[in-house]
């Protein structure tokens, strides 16, 4: 039995996950919590939010995010990858800046129009 705090929404439900019992989850207030509890112990994932360089815009940085959660162990590799991206204004919110990064189906998208 493991204790896990769900991060899917600000409620932060305290979950218990039984890894010996098909990763059954208790303590969740919604189905997303059950999903989270199951995954967190087996393949933890995180949405990464960060910035990349941008030229031709009012400021030097463009906020970006992964459009879906990335395997947690690839977090710092993702940051390295972002270091190498320089966007060029104009950029629209949601625009894909890098697709299928690090052998995943995760894309880096702009979170602001600049």
């Amino acid at each position, binding site marked *: 039995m493991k204790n896990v*705090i769900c991060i899917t929404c600000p409620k*932060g439900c305290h979950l218990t996950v039984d890894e010996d019992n098909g990763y059954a989850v208790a303590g969740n207030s919604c189905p997303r919590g059950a999903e989270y509890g199951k995954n967190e112990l087996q393949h933890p994932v995180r949405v990464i939010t*960060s910035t990349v360089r941008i030229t031709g815009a009012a400021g030097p*940085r463009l906020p970006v995010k992964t459009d879906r959660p990335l395997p947690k162990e690839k977090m*710092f590799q993702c940051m390295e990858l972002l270091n190498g991206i320089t966007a060029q204004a104009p950029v629209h*919110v949601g625009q894909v800046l890098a697709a299928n990064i690090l052998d995943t189906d995760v894309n880096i998208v702009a979170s602001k129009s600049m």
Partner: protein
Amino acid sequence: MKYDLVIIGGGPAGLSAANAAWEDGCRSICIVERDRELGGILNQCIHNGFGLHYFKEELTGPEYAGRFIEKLKGTGVDVRLDAMVLDITADKQVHIVSTAGGYEVLEAKAVVLAMGCRERTRGAIAIPGTRPAGIFTAGAAQRYLNIEGYMVGRRVVILGSGDIGLIMARRMTLEGAKVLACVEVMPYSGGLTRNIVQCLNDFDIPLYLSHTITDIQGKDRVERVVVSEVGPDRRPIPGTEMTFDCDTVLLSVGLIPENELSRSAGVEMDARTNGPKVFENMETSIPGVFACGNVLHVHDLVDFVTAEAARAGKAAAACCAGGRKAPERVIEVKNGNLVGYTVPQRIRADTDFKAVDVFFRVRAICGASRIVVTDSTGTQIAAFKRERMAPGEMENIKLPRVLLEKAQGDLTVSVEED
């Protein structure tokens, strides 16, 4: 220059108020914003967690602001960027200055105060030690990192476990710094639990509860800090000192509503919130002057700011349209057991509303409990069950008109633990 409505601040509160006022028919609106773009503090909040209530989506700060900025583009609301409000008079003259427009006086029928808040500083909590470079409030550091593109340090100790401190712990770590500790003076964290997980636990950053920084050392730049445990009186316990070699201290020790302009206009203030006292429609003690967002009381969720500001915008539009009668009955709303404050602080009983949303914060962590609303005779008007409440999570209850009509005298909102 004349406007029906002048809105001070183009952050989430100002944007929502403007959109709501326009939607309700006000056609002469001006937002005055000191930064070079709209969006306020959301521009630097590049993390997600915004909009779960309002949009049922998890957005980053800029995305959330972007939705309202886009909506605003479809209106005829005037926006003055890079413009600072110098003064607001009691008769709603707004004095502004900008390089583009020079010194201008905007005459308004209604004003919405949406100036947000500032961060509490080292001086306000009197941390002893030297005064080297490398000490930042978390928000100032966030601006450098996310907007200007600069790192503020390599080895960091963060004081304060509110959301801003936690978010910066993760942000600094992802950008290559080493965050040595998050230090919190209270016995519990002020931030969302999910942030403890994804900002501290994910990176093995220790959280020291009931601790504080008792000395900052370093000649030109921070070199180390001393952290001590504190007792129930929040004073350091001798003999518990730990030393951290670091070059940066981030302070996340509280937000203070920025009400200098409100005070100079003569708006009645609430010492508990450090913001104006308002009626249920967000109107302050000066008729036609409304307040919403962090300038009114510090929020945790921007979704609540949006809703509150929409109320203010609607009320401001109604005010401009005219035809308001003076209220006959005002109900004061008081804070009772375990409740720190309420917004609104007063309700005009005979105006046209279906229900009043009352927002408040508890003074301590509460387990299973009931929020109880009583009138001046002690009669219980309403009660609401809660599993858990914390000072770091603003609460709200809805009081339907029919219940308010039954109440005698003033109301008290209190919490009774089971």
